[in-house]
């Protein structure tokens, strides 16, 4: 078997090389070929792309972010700390064997030219985690790292909420968080010892999902920062995500917060401090200073514009209502799909709720349909064109069917956060179609939530489903089309700028990881 490995450690003078040697010994002892890239202070000699393409398994023994990990995308991967490679390299090699065996056959010779040389930051980069090469590639790697940690929360939380709606109907939400539904006003549960008694098992499930969902944005932000600067990024990243949630900035706010946190920590780590302070860096200075700066920016710079934008959008929507129904539906659709649970989405959703309260049931129907479209469209796209998506995204796609059907728009966030410029406009287009058609058909909804599980409360259900399907097809088509834009077959590596490096990597017959 052929294995490629990367070792790296914070200082880059000891563990990186010890791990490399240990892996080489263990691999040879087990009769494998191995090529190790040591990303240490002596400079990394990048593993040639052809070797990566030919390898059946990849081992990362790294305590800092592996540089240019996009090169290894789609390969069966084993990740461990450098120390575990030094202490028990044989076990890691055995895991690599297992990972390779579990993966479908790798198409050997998968177009080495698909890995542009520009993506390989060679030379004597030193032990710094960040280089300036291939900012586009790196940005995508950072976002994907955050997304990959977020996906389990989306799946766990979203599916719990969906199941709660399936078993308890849309009323479950109101029994837990309070509000008026079908003429009955429920009090929010504040004493959780009464959760089961007041809201039933479906209520408990809803709340579990709700709590898991509250971690979406913090985890996204925290692990984006983690991808940039390793462990020191987690504190300011997660705090920025919590604040993004608090000020209602949604996942786009968290995305900004995570990048901000990574950048601030990176800048602090670059500071040359007097020596009596440098020992305090990891435990005190970096967490404290970075959190103060990032938290302050999130509250003062991100928070207020978000609130102002929401006020502006709300009054604009109020002006639109009563003009053209289909136009209003299209606008609501655009808003629902823009940030999935973020500030713009919330304005549209609140507009739907206000319509519901005043007896205008068509707006609610359009809003709900437009919010169901994105996850389903993405799920469809991952099935139709799996090769356009990473293994993590394809897994997220499996859950997205049910999430979309349950009007849990957040199911689309992993895709949108990983590739916002292509995914968000595509989703907005389809949701606009759905929203406009739903309004045009005069579909109504007496339920403010629940998705397909409250179809009994929908007026003109058949037309409603037609509106949904139309938007789903449009969005899926746009996503596939947009993702193809960067996937023009790359024959000349000179054409493939570093920003496109990510594009080519997944094309090498993606193989599920783990």
């Amino acid at each position, binding site marked *: 078997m052929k294995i490629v490995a990367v070792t790296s450690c*914070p*200082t*880059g*003078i*000891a*563990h*990186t*090389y*010890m791990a*490399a*040697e*240990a892996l080489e*010994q263990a691999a040879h002892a087990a009769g494998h070929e191995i090529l190790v890239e*040591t990303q*240490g*202070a*002596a*400079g990394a000699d990048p593993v040639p792309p052809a070797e990566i393409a030919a390898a059946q398994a990849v081992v990362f023994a790294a*305590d800092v972010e592996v540089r240019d990990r996009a090169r290894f995308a789609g390969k069966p991967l084993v990740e461990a700390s450098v*120390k575990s490679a*030094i*202490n*028990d390299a044989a076990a890691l090699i055995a895991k690599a064997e297992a990972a390779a065996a579990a993966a479908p056959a790798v198409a050997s010779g998968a177009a080495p030219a698909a890995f542009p040389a520009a993506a390989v930051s060679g030379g*004597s980069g030193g*032990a710094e985690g960040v280089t300036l090469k291939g900012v586009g590639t790196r940005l995508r790697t950072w976002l994907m790292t955050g997304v990959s940690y977020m996906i389990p929360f989306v799946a766990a939380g979203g599916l719990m909420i969906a199941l709660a709606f399936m078993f308890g109907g849309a009323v479950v939400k109101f029994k837990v968080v309070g509000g008026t539904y079908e003429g009955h006003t429920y009090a929010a549960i504040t004493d959780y010892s009464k959760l089961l008694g007041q809201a039933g098992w479906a209520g408990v499930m809803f709340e579990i999902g709700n709590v898991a969902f509250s971690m979406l944005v913090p985890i996204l932000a925290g692990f984006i920062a983690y991808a940039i600067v390793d462990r020191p990024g987690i504190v300011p990243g997660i705090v920025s995500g919590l604040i993004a949630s608090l000020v209602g900035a949604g996942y786009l706010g968290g995305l900004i917060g995570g990048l901000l946190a990574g950048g601030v920590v990176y800048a602090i780590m670059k500071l040359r401090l007097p*020596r*009596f302070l*440098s*020992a305090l*860096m*990891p*435990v005190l200075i970096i967490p404290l200073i970075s959190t103060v700066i990032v938290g302050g920016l999130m509250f003062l710079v991100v928070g207020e514009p978000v609130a102002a934008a929401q006020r502006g959008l709300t009054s604009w929507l109020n002006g639109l209502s009563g003009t053209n129904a289909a136009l209003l539906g299209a606008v609501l659709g655009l808003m629902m799909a823009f940030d999935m649970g973020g500030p713009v989405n919330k304005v549209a959703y609140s507009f739907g709720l206000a319509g519901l309260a005043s007896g205008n049931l068509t707006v609610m129907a359009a809003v709900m349909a437009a919010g169901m479209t994105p996850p389903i469209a993405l799920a469809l796209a991952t099935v139709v064109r799996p090769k356009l998506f990473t293994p993590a995204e394809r897994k997220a796609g499996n859950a997205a069917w049910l999430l979309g059907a349950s009007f849990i728009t957040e199911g689309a966030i992993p895709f949108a956060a990983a590739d916002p410029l292509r995914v968000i406009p595509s989703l907005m287009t389809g949701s606009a179609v759905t929203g406009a058609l739903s309004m045009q058909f005069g579909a109504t909804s007496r339920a403010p939530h629940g998705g397909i599980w409250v179809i009994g409360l929908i007026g003109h259900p058949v037309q409603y489903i037609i509106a949904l399907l139309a938007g789903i097809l449009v969005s899926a088509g746009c996503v596939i089309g947009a993702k193809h834009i960067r996937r023009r077959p790359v024959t000349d590596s000179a054409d493939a700028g570093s920003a496109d490096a990510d594009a080519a990597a997944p094309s090498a017959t993606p193989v599920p990881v783990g």
Partner: protein
Amino acid sequence: MTDTTELILPEFVLLGLEAPDRHAATRRLAETLVASGRVTDLDGFLADVRAREAQMPTGIEGGIGIPHARSAHVTVPSLAFGRSDAGIDFGADDGPAHLIFLIAAPDGGDAAHMRILAALARRLVHESFRGALLEAPDPQSVVDIVTKEVLAR
């Protein structure tokens, strides 16, 4: 190997190194480097080592501790070696370290320097290298073993 001088000199070898903890042990070894002018500021260098140690203990299984740092207070890449019969805790899972390697790298060290340290690190995982160091009768033998194993590569 022209400009790199010796990585290790007999003065940097402490065969009866006993210390209450890893910081004291590191300080004893670092003092040998200060005495020869390879480390210009003892406390500054130790702070850098400590910062690295705080990220994750450097002890590894097999009774080895590798306190190390890249530091502005280091002039020449150097190795100080201590052997402790009682053992000194370096945070490894399987007990204290008997072989302690203090690796001092200059902050802006060039690739040639770093490659020597990389070669040293690679030798550390070899059973034979460790065994020879455990058996070495005197400091000069340690220097000979390191020089032969590391620089021959």
